[in-house]
Every structure is written in C-alpha cells, then in structure tokens.
C-alpha cells in the first residue's frame, strides 16, 4: 500500500465560509420531519464514563429501542456506544432489536499503550458481542510524523476486527489544523477504516462542521478515485436539532443522497436524541416542548 502523504492544501477560512453556507439552508415542514427522523436513526447513543455500570447501560439500551413511545413511527437509534467492559450488558439488553453495539477500544481515549494491549482490548469487545469498534489513532506518533506507525496500527486493528466495522477516531481536537485532519483521514481510510470519526468526546473542540466537512471531502476524494464508500461519524458537541440537520445538509451536498443512511453516517451523541424528539413532537403538535416530557438517558 502506497501512502499519499502529501498534505492536501486546505484554506480554513474557505471551509468556514462553506459551512456558513450550509447553515443558511432552511429546512421546513416535510423536509424537517424526514430530516429529524433520519438524524435520530443515525445516533450512536453514547455513554463513556468511568462511572458506567450495567444499570446505566440497561437504561440507555431501553431508550435506544424506545425513544419516545408516545410518538408512533419513530426509528430506533443506530447503535449504542460503550466501553468494552459494558458490551456484554448491552448485548443482553438490546437482544434482537437491531440496534448495533459499538465499543470503543485501543486504550480509549488516549491510545497511549502498546499494540498488544490494543489488540486485546479490541478482541475483548468483539468477543463480548460488539458489532463495531471505535478505535483511536496514536496522535502523538501522527504529530511526530510517524505515519507508518499509525497506518500499521490501524491495519492491525482492522485485521483483528474481522468482519466487524471499524471506526477510526482521529481526535481532531488534538491534530492542530485542518491539513492534519485531512491527512489523518486519508491515512485511516487507506489503512482500512470503514468509518472515520472526529473525536472521543473527551477533548475540546470535539466535532465541528469545519472538521467534518474536511473529512467528508476526503471521503469524497476517495470515492472519486476508487468508487468505494466510507462512512463518517462526527462525535461530541452536536446537541441540537438545527445543527444536526445542517450536518445532514452538509452530508447531502458534499457526498450525496447515497450517504443519507445510518450505514454511512452516524452522530456520536447523547443529548441530541432528546432535542430531536422535542422537535419531532413540536412539528406534530405545533407546540414548543419542555424537557420534562422527554426521558433522560
């Protein structure tokens, strides 16, 4: 595999202007209903805390399957996203709902350990029943310019994943600039990523439209070259419906309608679901909603 290690020139101001343009899109009536439901179906409902327990996971899994039963016709979320230790619980509670289990692995969130431990971490998650692995790249090595190390590591994890889908977290908040984001995106894709993902949620800034646009454009470049689709997951910081809809507009205009499915796009988020639900109820009833009517988790 020959790596394209040339930085792709990116003008950050131009990226911001393009994002501002997405934000001027006005999403009304039918388009809004469809968009809100689509966004719901793309959520990886996430808990990644030191204090996570089976009890917490059980409640979140219930929510994943029953977002707001008062409103018929809602999809489930795409997946729940948990630590490897919690995968078994999630497997138990989700049953055959179709909601997937994503597990972070590879010494999430820092990735500061050796490959053996990362592989073991991955294996543990898969053995416990994870459908998808969200790995972190070694940002320190990347910033040192040791791209081969990062590439090889991703390839090894990909191999360990077998037929499970691999999402590669770039932790864009640590990469410094957009050229690095593009380079890391391409590196991850070339090394076998099925999805590229912005952030762990533990570092600020997490997902931004600007960073996501750069990653989408790398996915588009790769598609133009190879005809192969790669998925995208912005994670962290997307907590309201309007923003989520603008991400979907960005997705549509950058990659096209084929990507408008949870097979190719995910939101890594925890509080977004309730805001989408509020908006869906508002669209249905015409009345602005209060958080009191929407279950936490």
């Amino acid at each position: 595999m020959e790596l394209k290690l040339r930085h792709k020139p990116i003008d950050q101001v131009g990226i911001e202007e393009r994002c501002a343009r997405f934000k001027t899109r006005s999403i009304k009536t039918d388009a809004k209903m469809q968009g809100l439901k689509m966004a719901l179906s793309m959520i990886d409902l996430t808990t990644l805390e030191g204090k996570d327990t089976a009890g917490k996971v059980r409640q979140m899994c219930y929510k994943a399957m029953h977002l707001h039963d008062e409103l018929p016709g809602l999809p489930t979320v795409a997946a729940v996203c948990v630590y490897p230790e919690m995968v078994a619980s999630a497997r138990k509670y989700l049953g055959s709902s179709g909601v997937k289990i994503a597990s972070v692995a590879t010494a999430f969130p820092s990735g500061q350990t050796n490959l053996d431990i990362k592989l073991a971490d991955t294996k543990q998650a898969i053995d416990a029943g994870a459908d998808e692995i969200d790995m972190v790249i070694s940002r320190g090595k990347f910033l040192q310019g040791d791209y081969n190390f990062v590439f090889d590591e991703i390839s090894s994890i990909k191999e360990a994943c077998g037929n499970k889908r691999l999402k590669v977290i770039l932790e864009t908040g640590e990469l410094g600039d957009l050229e690095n984001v593009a380079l890391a995106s391409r590196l991850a894709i070339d090394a076998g990523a099925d999805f590229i993902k912005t952030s762990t949620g533990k570092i600020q800034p997490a997902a931004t439209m600007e960073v996501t646009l750069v990653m989408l454009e790398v996915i588009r470049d790769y598609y133009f070259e190879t005809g192969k689709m790669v998925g995208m997951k912005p994670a962290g910081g997307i907590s309201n419906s309007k923003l989520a809809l603008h991400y979907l507009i960005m997705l549509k205009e950058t990659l096209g309608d084929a990507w408008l499915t949870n097979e190719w796009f995910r939101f890594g988020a925890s509080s977004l679901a309730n805001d989408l639900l509020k908006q869906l109820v508002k669209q249905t009833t015409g009345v602005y909603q209060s958080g009191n009517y929407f279950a936490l988790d």
Partner: protein
Amino acid sequence: MATKKSSEKKSVQSADLPINKTYKLFINGAFPRTESGRYFQLDDADGNFMANICLSSRKDFRNSVVAARSAQQSWQDRAAFNKSQIVYRIAEMLDQKRDLFVNEMIQMGYSKSASDKEFTAAVDLVVYYAGWCDKYMQVFSNVNPVASSHFNFSVPEPTGIVATMASEKTALTGIIQAIIPPICGGNTVVVLSAEKYPATAISFAEVLATSDVPAGVVNILTGKRAELYSHFASHMDVNAVVIWDAEKADAKNVGALAADSVKRTHFYESKTPVVGNPDLIMNLQETKTTWHPIQNISGSKSGY
C-alpha cells in the same frame, strides 16, 4: 555647444568651424530622425536659424508607443530603490551640463539669470522626484480593516503608458515635469516637447541616454501639437494622456477620443515656477487591492 551666434558664423575660414548638433528624436534609447523626413526650422530669439527640428509623424508616435510598451513591465518591476537611483542619476548628468542648457535657453530668449534659475529649478525638480520613487507607495498605501477574516491591502501601481505633451511655458522644467513623475511611478512615457523649446528637450534626451534609464522608458518627440493630438488620444495601447496647458477645444477633442479605450486623461495648467507635487505621480497610478484569508485556528485570532 550646439550652435554659435550668427556673428561668429562669418569666420568660416577659421580652423574652429563649429560642429552643429543635429537634433533628432529619442525613441527606444536611440536618436532616429523622423521617419517622415519632415522638419521645421527653429530660430533663436534673434530670429536667426538655429536648427532643423524633426517634425514627428503619427508613425514616430506609434514607434514610441511600441518602445514604451516593451519597456514598461520591466521598468515597473525594478526595485523602487533602483528607480530612485536612476532618477537621481538623471539629476547628476543634468547638473554637469549646466553650460549647455543655460546657453541653449539664452539662445531661446531666456535672460542669463532666468536661464540659471530655470536650470537650477530643473535639477532640483529631478532630485525632488528621485526621492519620491521609494516613498509614494508607503505614503499612499493602506491596510484596510475589512470585517471578514481577510488581510486586505491597497497599493498604487503604474497605469502603464503615458502619452504627454509638455508645457510651452518653460524650456526645461516643463518637460521634466511631464517626464519624471510618471516614470518615478513606474510608467513609461512618450512626450511631445514644447514646440517652442525642442532643442532643450532633445538635449535633455542626451542626459537621459547617459543616465541608466532603460531604452523605451522615455521617448521624446518634437513637432506640432495640432498634428499629434488625435494620435495621442486615439492610440489604443496608450493608458493615459496628460496634456499641459491645453486649449479648451483641444482638451475636448482629446477627451472624446480617449474614451474609446477609457484612457485616463489629465489636463494640467502649469504654474511658474514649477514645483514638485506628488499628485503628478499619484494621478498616474491605479489602486490595486489584494485580499487573502487569515487562518483562524483555536482562537488564535488575527488582529488586523
């Protein structure tokens, strides 16, 4: 010396027969005769024959514009410091030839003191503009505080080729005022000398020819305004027309013809004594404004 007083001409048999200078045009660094072969007679103040002067044609003007165009970009591209040195060199070369110019002007009717004064003023004028070459851009540029995340600056740039007719009112400062400010600003010039003072104009060309001014940067024609107005104004490769002390009707005709290629036109009234004025540089400058984004990462905002 170009010519001697007519009284001296009687001594034709003597060994020191003066060598009369042939006054030719100055085009592309060379001194050609007019391609038309035409001339007009220049008499001194006493009405005696002084010289045959080239009566420039439309084609001489055209050749000058070609020379000016091919010289323009590289003249513009010279460093401001270099242009400044070359213009100062003109002053050095001029100052050495005080006797030549003073005598020539006396022949044309200047008194000794007026001629001295005119010459000193001329040298001072060249020195004044030499100093502007590397300053006008600083003084008349701006960084513009635009509201978006862009660095934006405006700088003057030469208009290009300036076709100009020098004032009839002065023998030397008039033509210097027509030539030097435009070239300080990176333009190249085709100038028609005063009908009254073609000899000093061509003697000034000899100064230019020995001052490291690149060929084509200044081209000097002699002849009649009335014949050349329409050609100056209508040539499509001329960017600006500057007429000193134009009659109103001539200004109207020149202005109307100049519109065909949207030339910049300036009709100046000369004042005596001639004094330096940076407007004469700046009125032959375009403003170029350049934008470039300013990256804005992680809150490290720029303060422009």
